[in-house]
């Protein structure tokens, strides 16, 4: 019930924002070129969708982020498991995380370009950097706070090391793992769009960031907003819808949230 009312409130609020936007656009306080109306944004969006380039570019962006996240998150889990072996390794890993974690991915771009050139690999590198450290941080925290009793029950029922990791430690630490994934995703998504804007069209594989950059260059404001709309929509779908579904079907179902 409360949830429904919240959702209704949220919808009303968004409708209000859109109305304010529309009124402002039609009042011509700002030049139409800089502040397009919702209709023109919508028609630009439809036009772009029909043309198909924006779909391809969205696909490119998503493909890159998925690739980077899969590599980064698997790496993070391996490193975190390794960090559980001894207190000293744990110390090294934690130190490394505290050095690397505050470094915005996009700040590594010049370095990435030197190492990998201007292209897909540089972007993947930055995405991996964006997801790796927060994932290690959360995974290690998750592992450290596993109730000892689960590990003891695990060894009692005859589980060996690998099974303890995959079947006890990972599900026990799932709430933290999901937090790590979520933080990593939002960092990577921002880094990806920024990086694409900076070196954009290298060959055919450009993404959403480059799309917006290009539209600005051509002074196609409705097009810019159409691009922004897609970025917001994907962010919303992943962060609010997808993660919510994952939580509902795992940790919430299992009573592992407080």
């Amino acid at each position, binding site marked *: 019930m409360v949830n429904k009312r919240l959702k209704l409130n949220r919808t009303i609020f968004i409708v209000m924002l859109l109305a304010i936007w529309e009124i402002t656009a039609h009042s011509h306080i700002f030049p139409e070129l800089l502040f397009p109306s919702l209709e023109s944004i919508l028609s630009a969006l439809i036009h772009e969708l029909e043309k198909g380039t924006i779909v391809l570019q969205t696909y490119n962006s998503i493909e890159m982020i998925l690739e980077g996240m899969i590599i980064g998150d698997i790496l993070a889990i391996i490193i975190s498991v390794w960090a559980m072996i001894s207190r000293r390794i744990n110390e090294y890993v934690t130190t490394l995380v505290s050095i690397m974690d505050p470094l915005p991915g996009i700040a590594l771009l010049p370095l990435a370009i030197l190492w990998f050139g201007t292209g897909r690999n540089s972007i993947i590198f930055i995405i991996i950097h964006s997801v790796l450290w927060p994932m290690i941080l959360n995974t290690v925290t998750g592992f450290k706070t596993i109730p000892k009793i689960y590990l003891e029950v695990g060894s009692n029922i005859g589980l060996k090391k690998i099974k303890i990791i995959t079947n006890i430690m990972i599900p026990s630490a799932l709430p933290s793992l999901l937090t790590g994934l979520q933080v990593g995703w939002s960092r990577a998504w921002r880094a990806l769009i920024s990086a694409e804007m900076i070196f954009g069209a290298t060959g055919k594989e450009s993404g959403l960031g480059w799309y917006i950059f290009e539209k600005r260059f051509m002074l196609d404001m409705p097009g810019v907003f159409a691009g922004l709309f897609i970025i917001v929509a994907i962010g919303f779908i992943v962060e609010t819808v997808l993660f919510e579904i994952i939580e509902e079907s795992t940790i919430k179902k*299992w009573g*592992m949230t407080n």
Partner: protein
Amino acid sequence: MECFLEIKELCKSFVSNGRYITVLDKISFNLHENDFLCVLGPSGCGKSTLLRCIAGYEKINSGKIILEGNELTKPGTDRMMVFQDFNQLFPWLTVEKNIDYPLKINYPKLSKIQRKELTSYYLELVNLDNFKDFYPHQLSGGMKQRVVIVRALSLHPKLLLMDEPFGSLDALTRYKLQKELLKIYEHTGVTIIFVTHNIDEAIILSSKIVVLSQHPAKIIDIITNDIEQPRLPGTPQYGELWNRLNLLMGLDKSIEESAALTREEVI
């Protein structure tokens, strides 16, 4: 004759704040198959430590633990542990899967259907078959403990180790579970070591009682309990044993002593 379980001069100490604290001091006792041993002692005396040593969770400093001729050093499915904590089922598995999973690990040859049959057999044993699709957080404390007990039994342990498993339950549920445990004990003939600080619980359940002292834990007495079931507090034998255990645990004496201490302090 070789004994089923033999504990020989078991010593265990912990280092805390740079000092050695001896918790178990030369504990020795024997157990026959099908015994129901209650380890009785005041809180903090080392009962859990003793059980954890037998389970293989703690390295012992000296002495021997021998089960059917084999010295024990690490955890194994021949000794299944049941803790007091209500959160020892895996929360990410349903009740059914919590029992199924250990079976799958330990009896890889069983088919899915065979495991399913076993699982419902064990759940029926504690009247929880209707809850098989529930997740642990949807169960009451008493229900969780019953699932834990049958999960342990399903692996056919030689020893069932129970560390105050009913300690956090309300009196009524505790009483029901004691009855159920006795039923299971008679039904399966499993050998049990059951730790408690509750005299009544020890009397109701045990066939044998080991009484421990405090700081460090030493065995004060080993008592055979052959009062006929059902063991009712009103009967003379019950009362007699209760008084004896109460005296051994020094409860009344300590109340008098502490009363004396407070008087001295007042003077």
